[in-house]
């Protein structure tokens, strides 16, 4: 019971962290509102190894709502893009972490997540917003997504490898699940 409560504290902390990163990201000008660097994905990427899938999804929901609040897009069409992209990316990251942990580091998982997110958003913009010309967005979107995912993945990999806080969370998680 105690470790479960601590886990929720962790979830809240990570949620707050992704809110903060959303704010940082909001400062950076973007040509298209749902184009994102994906900074707020960092907490999700880092916590793959010590949160349960359910908690990862909760964290994703917190991130989506938080981003909506920070960017002021909670009740606009952009929110739909944000939600679709975030869910697609979290699901893909969860699945790839679960099944390909041996051959993928957080770098690969992050890139897969970013591809999933961009794919979902391009799909929506193709059918809801821009029609065929949505494909014009694809190359810059995918390029930016891959580059930032690569950098964030390298950071997350280094962070999880050296952080004592992460090590403690992992230990707690293992204790709780065994």
């Amino acid at each position, binding site marked *: 019971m105690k470790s479960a409560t601590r886990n929720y504290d962790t979830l809240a902390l990570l949620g707050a962290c992704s809110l903060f990163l959303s704010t940082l990201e909001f400062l950076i000008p973007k040509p298209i509102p749902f184009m994102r660097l994906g900074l707020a994905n960092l907490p999700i990427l880092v916590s793959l190894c010590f949160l349960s899938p359910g908690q990862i999804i909760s964290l994703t929901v917190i991130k989506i709502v938080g981003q909506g609040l920070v960017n002021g897009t909670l009740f606009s069409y952009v929110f739909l893009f944000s939600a679709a992209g975030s869910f697609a990316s979290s699901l893909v990251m969860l699945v790839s972490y679960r099944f390909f942990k041996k051959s*993928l580091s957080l770098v690969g998982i992050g890139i897969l997540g970013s591809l999933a997110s961009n794919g979902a958003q391009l799909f929506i913009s193709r059918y809801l917003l821009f029609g065929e010309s949505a494909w*014009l967005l694809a*190359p810059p979107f995918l390029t930016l997504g891959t580059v930032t995912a690569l950098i964030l993945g390298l950071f997350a990999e280094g962070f999880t*490898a050296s952080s004592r806080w992460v090590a403690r969370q992992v230990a707690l998680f293992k204790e709780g699940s065994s």
Partner: protein
Amino acid sequence: MKLKKGDWAVLFLALSLIAATAVPVYRRSGREAHLVLEAPGLTEVYSLSVSREIRVPGPLGETVVVIDNGTVRVKDSPCRDKLCVFSGTLNNAGEWTACLPNKVFVKLVGKGEEEVDEVSY
């Protein structure tokens, strides 16, 4: 920290996806202007260099589109207002007309056209 084998595979996948989307998109924009016809269940592209008459089927009947000397106009359409006919001849890339009742969309696409006028939010 070392990248694992799978990471390189994923990176390669991402790069090939980028290339796969970039090539058709940027090659198309370099071509000469051409005519794009859209109707329910149908999208057709015509070159402007061949003069011809095209009958496009729609819910109300056939809309007749004429390509003549590199220009395009709607000659006839089975609609009430004939706005598409009265909108005259299309000369430049980016110009378009449509017969809304018959759900036919006629557009010139190609060089010199601004793909996106303005993005605002």
